[in-house]
């Protein structure tokens, strides 16, 4: 990446003549390998990411259904006013899931790959095939140069360079010896490593999205079980949920005692905390949130239990109100609700509506500990129960992300902390000419001066500039 010699090098290379005919592939290649286009794409990606950081992003529950999204939108409407619907239409509340943001990321990746491929031959050449024989103008025009106006044996120059841990190539032409010396030439490959890692980051992310999953709001009431979907054949039971608070009023600990059940048998047990998830068969259960929800029991005419679990409420219906709905086959829907953050009498009863095929069949209030009949259904409100909110996820791409991070760091360290130095010398009977390039983090000019000083015979002063000869 920050190899600052490349621009100087490129300037000395002749430009390739443009293709005579219009070739769409060639044009596309040139578009994506252009530095200006890269800068524009990076800038636009930055701006979009920034927009996502500034605008409130719709949380997972809001994106679950159009209704929940609409009710979420009403909540942020006071903040964004008349522009709310416009912002929503251009996905400003879901920037990172939007087509335009993902498209931008895809463009950035294509650009990274193509730019790297484009620079690969040049990097390769400069690492492995540098010319030792350089002409007069090269020595005259180098930014960092020095000359010794007296004869110095070529072997002395080579020895001095080797002492500085340079790798030296020697070419003899007549009575002139040309030397090319290189130090940390491999560090330049760090650039390839960093760009490769960016591609790996993307692949890891895509792999995770394609082959992993993340259910962000899995709710399990105390004593209830959650049956894994997605082809997994086990259940997770919440045995107990505990919350602890500091005297200062800050949360101290949230923990869920979980059991994994397979075929009715308990196969694993763990108390999970925010910083200590449970992983079973590659699936991770992370403590995410918690709450209290009403527990309902619904029986049919024969006394068979159709439902017995908590029904977590979410905002909806009307302001400061929370509802939840329970669908019972074939076509019955039970809707329960109560004011948000209820206390006293409000917490002790639920507003109940029973729909049958879209028609309201019954409605009224259901008191705690009581049950009501609707048709042949028997609905009981057992009281409030604590529940735990888990993120259940599996990300097979995460490993790739950590490998990519390691490669990125390795690449950065090699190109930053092992700055490459390149030095050319022309050793002739009338004297020695030196020229060097290095990354800006090295004071190569000073190094060159001190090298010239050590090589100079007694009484001869090296010159900064070469006299025209």
């Amino acid at each position, binding site marked *: 990446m*920050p190899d600052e010699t490349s621009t100087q090098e490129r300037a000395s290379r002749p430009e390739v003549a443009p293709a005579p005919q219009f070739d769409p592939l060639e044009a596309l290649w040139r578009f994506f390998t252009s530095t200006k286009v890269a800068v524009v794409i*990076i800038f636009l990606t930055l701006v979009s990411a*920034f927009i996502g950081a500034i605008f409130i992003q719709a949380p997972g529950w809001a994106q679950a259904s159009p209704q929940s999204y609409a009710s979420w939108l009403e909540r942020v409407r006071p903040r964004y006013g008349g522009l709310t619907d416009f912002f929503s239409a251009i996905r400003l509340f879901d920037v990172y899931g939007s087509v335009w943001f993902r498209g931008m990321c895809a463009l950035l990746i294509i650009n990274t790959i193509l730019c790297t491929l484009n620079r690969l031959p040049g990097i390769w050449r400069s690492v492995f095939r540098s010319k030792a024989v350089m002409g007069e103008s090269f020595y005259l025009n180098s930014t960092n140069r020095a000359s010794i106006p007296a004869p110095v044996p070529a072997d002395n120059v080579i020895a001095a360079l080797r002492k500085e841990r340079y790798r030296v190539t020697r070419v003899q032409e007549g009575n002139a010896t040309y030397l090319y010396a290189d130090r940390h030439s491999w560090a330049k490959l760090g650039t390839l490593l960093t760009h490769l890692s960016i591609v790996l980051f993307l692949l890891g992310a895509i792999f995770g999205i394609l082959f992993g999953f993340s259910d962000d709001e899995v709710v399990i009431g105390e004593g209830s079980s959650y049956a894994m979907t997605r082809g997994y054949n086990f259940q997770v039971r919440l045995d107990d949920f505990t919350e602890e608070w500091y005297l200062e009023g800050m949360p101290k600990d949230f923990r869920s005692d979980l059991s994994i059940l397979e075929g009715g048998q308990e196969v694993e047990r763990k108390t999970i905390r925010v910083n200590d998830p449970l992983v079973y068969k590659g699936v991770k259960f992370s403590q995410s949130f918690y709450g209290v929800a009403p527990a309902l029991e619904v029986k049919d005419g024969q006394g068979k239990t159709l439902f017995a679990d908590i029904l977590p409420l979410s905002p909806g219906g009307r302001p400061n109100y929370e509802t939840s709905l329970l669908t019972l086959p074939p076509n019955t829907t039970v809707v329960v609700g109560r004011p948000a953050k209820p206390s006293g009498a409000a917490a002790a009863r639920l507003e109940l509506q029973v729909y049958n095929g879209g028609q309201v069949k019954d409605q009224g209030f259901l008191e705690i500990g009581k049950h009501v009949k609707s048709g042949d259904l028997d609905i009981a409100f057992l009281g409030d129960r604590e529940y735990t909110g888990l993120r259940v996820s599996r*990300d097979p791409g995460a490993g790739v992300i*950590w490998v990519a991070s390691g490669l990125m*760091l390795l690449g950065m360290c090699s190109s930053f902390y092992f700055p490459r130095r390149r030095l050319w010398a022309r050793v002739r009977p009338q004297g020695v000419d030196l020229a060097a390039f290095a990354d800006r983090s090295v004071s190569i000019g000073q190094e060159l001066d001190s090298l010239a000083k050590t090589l100079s015979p007694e009484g001869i002063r090296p010159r900064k500039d070469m006299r025209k000869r």
Partner: protein
Amino acid sequence: MEKMSLYFFTAGLITVALAAVLYLWYAWTRQGDAGRFATIFAWMGVALLTGSVITRTIVAQRGPFANMYEFSLSFGWGILLAYVVIERQYKLRTIGAFVVPVSLLLLVYALTVPSAVQPLVPALQNSLLLTIHVSLAIVAYAMVAVAFGSAVMYLIQEAHQNRVSILPPADFLDAMGYRAVLIAFPFIFVMIVIGALWADIAWGRYWGWDPKETASLVTWLIYAGYLHARAVAGWRGKPTATLLIVGFVATMFTFFGVNLFLSGLHSYAGTG
């Protein structure tokens, strides 16, 4: 012990304020005495703030990394320490006029937020990752502040055609900013990676576009832009110095703005 930490902090704040004034005075009047005293005060400031950080660590039984007061104290201390080391290394005093005030601002900010030692909320109860994550941030932010100071001086020097004799030559400042970024850039990166690793453990995902995550990524990308602008496009001087200032503003936004103005998973680090 908590009181002692506060006494150290207050004494450190006053000392750093004096140092900042003296550095500015020195940059303005070029009086050697002012510069020498500025250096003495800066070192005293480092000593006092180190005392404050250590006593705070003892009383809280963890690094001072858990709320806005502790972050500001740690970052202010880190920036000052980075500065005095660089001043000693390069025998440069004028850069102090631009870096020490940044440290001072952080310390003044720390003064305005509640300083009580608070217990760790569940998400932060991972002392190993917390320590690494925030320590990396301290080094990164210190280097970013040094790069910022160099960039500001560069722009001044450039506007006056290198004739501001009290400042180092423009060329040197350009290289100085670059070297600071060469340290800051990998540190920001590793800080983000450790953060992601931690998020994977604590929140079950390594990346979630949380405002803090996004802002730190954007900051890192700005410095990536700076490095590429130099290496690929051959930019030097004024445009790259401007990028360093943009990067610093982004860093400050990541530090303050995200916690104060935006809600997200990092908001436990807010004013409380």
